């Protein structure tokens, strides 16, 4: 007689998994509906080239949204079917990117500086944004996020979030300009607009990642990494847009290059970590903390708190930046830096505090789990390996020694072994806290993988 049993889950009573996919689907559907509604409104009421571009751009946004969803889910699938899902995702994202570039090209060509200048601006922003993403990913010293998810987060920030806000902000801005007294009142309204709409649009990407890719969203540190990545993607697209716009405005005065250069410095150097990255990282921090909290009330409160800080930080910059006028003298260069430090610095400092505390909290618990795993004698983590795994520098030294002995292959073999051991410790931590709904067999598979990798390392 054949009997089948359901593998035991860490939290057998958890019914969150199917529910959270339902929530993710509902959020995605709302995003698409909002895109359709706002673009039609733009087209009907504004009838400008951006309005038309937004309507034509819908298909591109929908393709990228669906493509990224399939992409992140593909890695949860059986390896046999994963390839098909990856191909589907690749085709959809490729189609979306091409369509989007076409829309942007048309938009820029007719409205701004032209595709050549836009390409130069984009190329200028690429190295700085890539550097920012590299730093942000490396902040997670204990358990780095996969590049594919960090890049998906940045792509969402750059393409989906910017598309959402372009339409919503146009409607808000036009309505406010028709109804309010120009001056501080209107400026405050527009600051509320930017803070609320932009952070909601960026935060949606973080929330969707949390709902769909729970296995790669471990805690507050991961949330900060994903949030900052979304913010950097958004900052990239906004930088290109502002640089091309200002270039076209000041080019007839022969000051186009200077205007675009100043904008690049402000957004890609000064504001790379201080602006959008900081704000959206708070949303990620809220979602990451919610990931580990026990009750639904606390989870919701943590997520709302993250959004609140992000919106407030963004609002304060937009509303009060003019309180710090930049003098047209040499001191102006100092003043620009001081302004960023004074206005966004406290928010970034608060975030760094959360990050340091989160890394410490994560690290202590991983060590605890590594010791417990070593004590089982299963052989996945040996007692003498715990101090090495606990220190990023000692891990690096171990990889470097493998490189010196065997070359690049040895380096990567040891790297894979260390990653698998940390994955196992993380899985154990979540299971102990009843934060995962994957079966116990998943943990055993991780353990077997570590042992298998250890054989490879020994063989090499």
């Amino acid at each position: 007689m054949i009997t089948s049993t359901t593998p035991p889950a860490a939290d057998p009573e958890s019914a969150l998994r199917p529910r959270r996919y339902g929530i993710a689907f509902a959020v995605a559907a709302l995003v698409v509906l909002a895109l359709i509604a706002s673009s039609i409104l733009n087209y009907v009421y504004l009838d400008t080239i951006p309005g038309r571009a937004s309507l034509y751009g819908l298909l591109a946004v929908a393709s990228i949204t669906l493509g990224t969803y399939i992409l992140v889910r593909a890695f949860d699938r059986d390896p046999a079917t994963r390839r098909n899902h990856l191909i589907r995702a690749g085709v959809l994202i490729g189609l979306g990117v091409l369509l989007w570039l076409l829309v942007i090209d048309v938009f820029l060509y007719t409205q701004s500086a032209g595709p050549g200048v836009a390409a130069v601006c984009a190329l200028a922003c690429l190295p700085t944004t890539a550097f920012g993403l590299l730093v942000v990913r490396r902040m997670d010293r204990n358990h780095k996020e996969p590049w594919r998810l960090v890049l998906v987060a940045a792509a969402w920030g750059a393409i989906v979030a910017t598309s959402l806000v372009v339409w919503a902000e146009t409607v808000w801005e036009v309505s406010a300009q028709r109804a309010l007294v120009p001056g501080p009142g209107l400026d405050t309204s527009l600051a509320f607009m930017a803070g609320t709409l932009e952070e909601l649009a960026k935060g949606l990407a973080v929330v969707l990642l949390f709902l769909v890719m729970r296995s790669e969203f471990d805690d507050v540190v991961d949330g900060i990494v994903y949030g900052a990545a979304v913010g950097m993607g958004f900052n990239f697209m906004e930088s290109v847009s502002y640089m091309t716009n200002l270039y076209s405005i000041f080019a007839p005065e022969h000051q186009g290059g200077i205007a675009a250069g100043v904008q690049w410095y402000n957004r890609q150097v000064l504001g790379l970590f201080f602006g959008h990255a900081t704000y959206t990282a708070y949303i990620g921090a809220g979602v990451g903390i919610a990931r580990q909290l026990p009750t639904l009330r606390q989870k919701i409160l943590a997520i709302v708190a993250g959004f609140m800080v992000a919106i407030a930080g963004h609002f304060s910059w937009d509303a009060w930046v003019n309180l710090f006028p930049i003098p047209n003298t040499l001191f102006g260069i100092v003043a620009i830096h001081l302004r960023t430090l004074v206005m966004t610095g406290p928010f970034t400092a608060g975030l760094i505090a959360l990050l340091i505390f989160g890394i410490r909290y994560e690290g202590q618990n991983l060590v605890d789990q590594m010791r417990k795993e070593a004590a089982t004698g299963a052989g996945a983590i040996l007692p003498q390996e715990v101090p090495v795994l606990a220190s990023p520098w000692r891990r690096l030294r171990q990889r470097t020694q493998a490189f010196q002995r065997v070359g690049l292959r040895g380096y990567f073999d040891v790297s894979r072994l260390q990653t698998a051991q940390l994955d196992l410790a993380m899985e154990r931590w979540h299971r102990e806290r009843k934060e995962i709904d994957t079966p116990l067999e998943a943990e055993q598979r991780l353990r077997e993988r570590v042992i298998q990798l250890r054989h490879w390392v020994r063989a090499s």
Partner: protein
Amino acid sequence: MSATTYDQLHTLYRTLLVFATVGAIILSVGLVQFVYFERPGEETGVKARIVGVYEYNLATMKTTGPDRSEFPRSDVFAAVVDWSSVPSQLVVDARWYDTFGSMRGEVGPGHATDLSGQSVVPVEVPPDLHFVLPGRYTFVVERLDATGVPVEVLARRFVLVDRS
């Protein structure tokens, strides 16, 4: 890394809640600021009349051509206000704002009767530039309160300045 014996998650949670409280205070200050400049109950129902927006000759300081809503950036333009449409006891002004929200030309403030000789309000070319900035310009005739804060728009007109 070192071993842990207590759950520090609640410290992180409470820290975030403290930050959120600060955020709520910041947004409340913003709301107060908005209400101060957009005061409810300030509607008088008065409407000022903007005669039109015309090309402006800087040399003769006179308007020419028909009423338009779009100009090339090489043109300077001016709005013409019929101050007689505004009750004389009101303190008013007229202003141009460029696409970045910066003021680019102003007449007033003063009582409408005092401004009757300044019905033409030209837009100003920014210092160090040769042309007006392109984009959407807003022209408003505003009513000011006793402290000089604009509290009501009596008339509004939008003008588009082309990039080329």
